[in-house]
């Protein structure tokens, strides 16, 4: 009987000690560790957002670069699998559909020659908002062309309304709407 009581006492003492030890560990480490983890997670999320904005800024410029140098495959691959483009030359969906649309639209255009650049897009006024794996942006485009007498001439201006999605770790256009602003696109209006 005595040895059973002694055993119970020992087990009881052991459990109390272990609970105190566990409690002490939690008290010593948990609050700062939890706070640090939360702060680190929050900091990582803020860094991620800055990286995402930077990646989207590059995407907005790459679009213009690929368009101006007639890298149509590169251009179409900036779109998500179901990404859509809507603008002056119509609308299309997915990289293959967008590539076909552009090839058709530019069928009669001479190939890009870096020594005889005919036009380019200025991409400006980026306003980007990231929300997790989605983002939206608005920006302006101004199209300049070379006149027959070799002068630089602003020809068209408009803006973009975009939705982006992170697809396989890469930001892509989920939808891009590219309205013309000046000259006014409505027939008959000036």
């Amino acid at each position, binding site marked *: 009987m005595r040895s059973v009581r002694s055993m119970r006492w020992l087990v009881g003492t052991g459990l109390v000690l272990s609970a105190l030890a566990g409690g002490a560990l939690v008290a010593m480490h948990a609050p700062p560790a939890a706070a640090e983890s939360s702060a680190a997670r929050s900091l990582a999320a803020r860094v991620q957002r800055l990286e995402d904005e930077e990646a989207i800024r590059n995407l907005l410029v790459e679009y213009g670069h690929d368009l101006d140098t007639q890298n149509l495959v590169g251009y179409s691959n900036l779109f998500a699998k179901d990404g859509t483009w809507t603008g002056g030359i119509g609308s299309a969906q997915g990289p293959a559909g967008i590539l076909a649309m552009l090839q058709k639209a530019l069928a009669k255009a001479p190939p890009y020659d870096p020594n005889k650049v005919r036009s380019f897009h200025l991409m400006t006024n980026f306003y980007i908002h990231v929300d997790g794996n989605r983002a939206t942006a608005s920006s302006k485009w101004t199209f300049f062309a070379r006149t027959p007498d*070799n002068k630089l001439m602003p020809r068209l201006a408009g803006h973009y309304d975009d939705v982006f999605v992170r697809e396989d770790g890469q930001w892509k256009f989920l939808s891009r709407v590219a309205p013309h602003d000046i000259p006014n696109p409505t027939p008959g209006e000036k």
Partner: protein
Amino acid sequence: MKWGRAVSVCLPGDSRTRAVVALGAMLGVAVASLAGLWPARADSLPPASLAARVQAVEGANQIRDLLISYGHLFDVRDLEGYSQLFAPNGTWNGNFGGSYVTARGPAGVLAMMVRVLGTPHYDPEKVTGFHLMTNFLIHVQGDHATAWSRWTYFARGKHNELVPSLAGHYDDALVRVNGQWKFERREVFRDIPPEK
């Protein structure tokens, strides 16, 4: 039972007691771990990695400033400041003053500018032209980076009108020197009108 032996150094009692206490202590740690409190440091990102990512984002911002400073310092004819944007061995490559030029280092870049422009005076009341710097495409890798961007030069015409005059682009390699991003190589292209 290494744990038991370790505990026996600190705790009184027979071996069974020590075993129970050791088991209890281990259970205590396990409970703390299961509560998600103990491994909190392990599941957060390594600080070095986060610091490197912040540095890359800061780098892209500083490089954007560099690309804009280049245009600003040229436009206000601060040729000394302009030349200091280049690394000690940084090069400027392009057509300037009627021929293709490669200028090396701040002193070489300054000499090239003075040779073509003299020592011009900038008058903010009589601005003759300016560069729009746009379309920045920047990729940072550690202490090196590449950039592509467009320049569009607007001038004041004969009748005081604003005239888009020239346009081109830059291809750049950049390097961080003593914590500052500098041009390691800048290639200047004029697109419209094309170079003759």
